[in-house]
Structure formats: C-alpha cells, structure tokens
C-alpha cells in the first residue's frame, strides 16, 4: 500500500517508495537529498507539529533527526517495510 509521509503514523519505521520531485523546488529537492532522504531509505516519523498546527514533521533518517514541512512530506510516498521485504 502506498501512502504519503505527511499522513504517516508516528513511531513506525517506513521505507521511502518514491519522491515526486515535481512537487518540490530544486533547492528543496537538493536539501532532502542532503539529509539523505532518497528512494529506498528507511525513515521513522517521530513528532508532528505543536499546539498551533500539524506541521512540521520530525523524522529519523539513519542516525540523524531532521525537520521538514508538510509540503515536502506530501511529495514523499512511503511503503510499509514488511510489504517491501
């Protein structure tokens, strides 16, 4: 099943199935790759938003935690790790 990262449940590791680069600006795409967010990479969404909004999203990629906004998360399609294996 394919889902978007911006609506992924927190705390469950998932794999990036596809990134729709068309939805992102050149700089946004590059920064995502600099963070190591690429197709096939395992990530775990951890925290989302505060009192005021459901953004941004903090996620673990490798040994790093990064913060992105909902707009970037919406361009990232994820799949369950068990399904891909």
């Amino acid at each position: 099943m394919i889902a978007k990262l911006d609506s992924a449940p927190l705390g469950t590791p998932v794999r990036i199935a596809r990134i729709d680069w068309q939805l992102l600006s050149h700089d946004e795409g590059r920064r995502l790759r600099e963070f190591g967010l690429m197709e096939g990479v395992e990530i775990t969404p951890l925290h989302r938003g505060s009192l005021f909004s459901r953004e941004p999203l903090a996620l673990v990629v490798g040994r790093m935690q990064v913060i992105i906004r909902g707009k970037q998360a919406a361009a990232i399609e994820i799949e369950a790790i068990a399904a891909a294996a």
Partner: protein
Amino acid sequence: MTGAIPTIALAGNPNAGKSSLFNALTGARQKIANYPGVTVERKAGHASFADGRPLSLIDLPGSYSLTPSSPDEAVTRDVVLGQQAGQKRPDALVIVLDAANLDNHLCFALELIALGLPTVVALNMLDLAERDGLTLDPERLAGELGVPVVPTVAVRRRGLSELLAALDHEILVHQLETHAHPAPPPTDVALHRRARAIARAATLSETPVRRWTQRVDAVFLHPVAGFLILLALMFVMFQAVYAAAEAPADLLESGIGVLQQWVVGAMPDTVLRGLIVEGLLAGVGAVVVFLPQILILFLFILLLEASGYMTRAAFLMDGLMAKVGLSGRGFIPLLSSFACAVPGIMATRAIPDAKDRLTTILIAPLMTCSARLPVYALIIAAFIPDHAVGGSPVGLQGLVLFGLYVSGIVGALVVAFVLRRTVARGNSASFMMEMPRYQMPRLNDIAIGLWQRAWIFLRRAGTIIAITTVILWALLSFPQAPADGEMRQVDYSIAGRIASGLEVVVKPIGFNHDIALALIPAMAAREVAVSALATANAIDAGDDEEEISQSLGERLQGRWSIATALAFLAWFVFAPQCISTIAITRRETNGWKWPMFMVGYLFLLAYAAAGITYWTAVAFGLG
C-alpha cells in the same frame, strides 16, 4: 616550508562540533569579524604545532555541500575554492565529521576531499557515537577516503595534538608531490551512495540503542506539553534576568555612587568635576549597572543553543510562525534578538528564502533586546510595586517585564503577517533543518561566548554611550541658568530648549520634558535613555549630597505619573532607537529602502502604543 604562517580552514556539516573543535584548538586566541562585503561572521584564531610554529585557523559556516542554499553556505564554498574576497585560499582543510552521523556527513567530506587541498578528517564526537552503540574503524575510513582520519573529542581536548601533527605532515607531503587535477564532482545522488557505502564499510558494529534522547523528545516535542515547557523556560529566563541580577547590580550601583561621592570630595568644584560626576559616572554608570542582567540573558541563550534545545524550540514555534508567513528557522535569529538585534539580524543569513529573511530582519527589532532592559528595569523598579501576585511566588515586577516581552512578540507576529501579505509577499517559506542531538554544554564554550558579549557591551558603554552622554552633559550644562532659581538648569540649557520643542509632539502621549530630553540622545542606543535621565537628574541635583544618594528611580517617582511611566515603557517596546540596528539592516538589505521603512513603521507603532497606553491609564485614574 616557507616562512608564511599556514592558514587552515575547519569545514563540515552543521552540528559536527566544528566550533567546539575551533575553541579547543585556539582557546581564547580568536577574533570574530566579518568577511568584507558580506555580514557572515569570520571566526579566526591562532594555534601552534607541537614544535611551536604558529598556524592560523578559520572556522567556516556549517554547510551540507558546495552548492550553497544560503549566504553563509556561499562563504564556505567561496573560501575553500579561493574565491572569497579578503581571504586567501586555505593551505589545508580540516573536515570535521560527526562520528555518529557518518553516512550523511561524508557527502560534503567527499566533495571537499575532491578539491585536492591537503586534508585531514577529524572524526569528532567519537564518545557520543560510542554512547549510541556505534563502533567505528578510523583506519578503514582513512583507507576509503584517501586522507588521514584522526579521532577527536573536541570538548575533552582529545586527539588535538594528533590532528595538528597529521595536518603538518599532509601540508609537507603536498608540497613534495605533483598533483593531478581534482576530479570533477559527482552528482549528488552518486555522492550519497558512495558516502553510505563508505560509512557502512567503516562501521564495525552498530547496536540499536533506544536513545534516552528520544524519550526526552517525547516530552519536549510533545504538541502540548512541549509547548508549555518552552513557555515555562522562557518565563523562567526572564524571571531569572530580574531576580538573579539584583544583588550584583545593586553592588555595581552603590560602587558607582561611592565613586561619585569620592570624586565630589576629592576635586574642587570645576567644570571637569561636573563632567566626571554628572556626565561620565552618572551616565555610563547607569548603563553598566545592567551588565549582570545582560549576561544572565546571554547565558540562557548560549545554554539553549549549546544543549541542542534551540532547534527543538524552532520546531515547536514553526507552526505558529508559518501562520504569519515565517518559518521556525526565523525563531533562532529572533530569540537571539532578545539579547541584541544586531547578531539576530546577522543570524537571518541562514534563512534561505529572501522574503522570509527580509520579514525576519524587519521584525527583529521588536524582540526586546538587552539594551531595553536598563530602561524597563529602571521604570519597573520605580513604578511597579514589588510584591507577589495573589500569594504566588510570581512577582508583579517580573510579570510586567514578561508582559513587555510578550507585547513585542505579539507585535512582531502581527507585523510579519501584514508584511508577508504586502511588501514582502512571496513563496511560502520552507523549513528544513537538522535536529542536533542533546549535548551537555561545555563550560569553556559558554565562557568564551559570555566573555565576548560582555566585552561588546562594555565597549559600547565605553564608546557610543560615553560620547553621547558627554555631549548631552555639555548641552545640559550650558548656558548656565541664572542664579535667581526661576528656571531649572535642565530647562534653561540648550538640550532643555530642544526638548521643549520635541515635547509639543510627544505631550499628547503623556511624555514630559524629562522624556523628551532623553529621547534625542537615545537615538544612538536605547539604554542611553537611562543615562540621559541620570545625567539630567544629576545636574538637577547638583552637589546636594542627599539628592545624589537618592536613586534615579526614587527621583523619577516624584516627577512622573504612573500613566506616563507606562506610556514610556510602551514606547520602548516598539521604538527603533538604535543606530547599530539601522546600520546592520542597511548592510543586510543592501540599501536604505528597508532600514528607512523599518524606522518609519516602528516610530508610528511606538507613538500609537504609547498613546493608547497613556490614554487608557488616565481613564483608569492613573494620570
């Protein structure tokens, strides 16, 4: 080796521990200035090899790649490529890697190594990586990268001499070799694959550790609890500024009083004595008294930054800031602006989007900077009763101070909202940031930071504030009022007459002659308002021992209504009275358009806020 001192640049990703390594290598022997033409801070310092030969070190802004996405990342690229004006190309590079984050940090490292400069990798924060259950093989890593790798723990000063020895060797070898042209840079995806492969090869074992930091973050980043903790932290910070600084500030104040009385006793009654007692000591002293408060505020900010909490705060604030068209990234410059808008505005260079950055610059002066503290502290101490609110441990004075800070913040959010829909319209800002791990702040790094802030403040007190105070003293002392006592000297003098002109404009918002007089020199810096009031009152008191011994606050109490005092506070929430801020805004925005806009809108807001406060207070019978 020629006689020239080699220049070595420290480069690496943000949060790799570069600054700690830089501090460990240079100690206090460092100098912060700007690169010419840009406002990116250039941190330079000196160190020496084991045999005593000196070397010069520069700490480059943290970067993810050689393709910059913000002005400070552009400086990093330009320096390592030898294209930065005013900075010769470094003779060697130290690439600082976070040992616990190899797969990511290696991408930039590979780009830097491909440049072909003599290079040594500092595998930093190895202790934290081990804490996280990671065992690395530095030799294997060196083999893969083709450059020496030295394990370091900068904060414990481990690996420093080995690092310098490896550098020395690399520079020497480099001079003896002939070099092939550097390889063309690979594409970023290929770079990442290679980085991950190398990281895997250099990792001996990796135990998945349930990190305690994740449990901490479950609370600190909780949508409700985390936000309340942030609010509580800020509240404690401002209460501490008020409470903890009281004793040292009192000590400084009485010290200055003793000094004044000593000079009065020791010198004949001349113009020079007047200049020293009423001008310099009263004026500069009134500002120096606030050093403890400013240091406490900076202490909190430095601790929040060094511990890694600041990025959490940015995360929590992003949702709110997005609503007014800003990003959480803007929170860090804005929080720094609570100490001083100048470093705050300079810190906006990390914001990638131009309109987001411009808006953040324009609202930075609304954050209550430390220069406003002297003004607030004086007026609050004099006019707000010192008792607890409803039996709680919260003091009314601290609460009013907190309220002033909140007014500035709310004002800033409203202004940002309007600006982003009018003059600074643009793409919605993005917010992509790495979240650093929590770390115990190092005493040494905090001490260096505090010392630099204290020095900047005292230098300001010694220059801008001393000069404006002396000029004001002269304008206040001449011409001498006739001895018949019909007119007070303060009203009769040149400054008094200028103030009388200005008073016409500010009278409707409740300002009196004292305030009109203080506002003019306070254009140089806000805290001068306090020294101006002090100087004017000192001249008014003359040599009367009893009046000299009275504090400035006590004297103001007798002369101002509460409504006037509150209006004065409201004025300073908004007023753009700081030449340094205007100058830095001009430099950051490349022209006079935006600083002029900033000054204009802030004066309008200040006038309106003071007026509304005054009229409301009068309506409640406080006039």
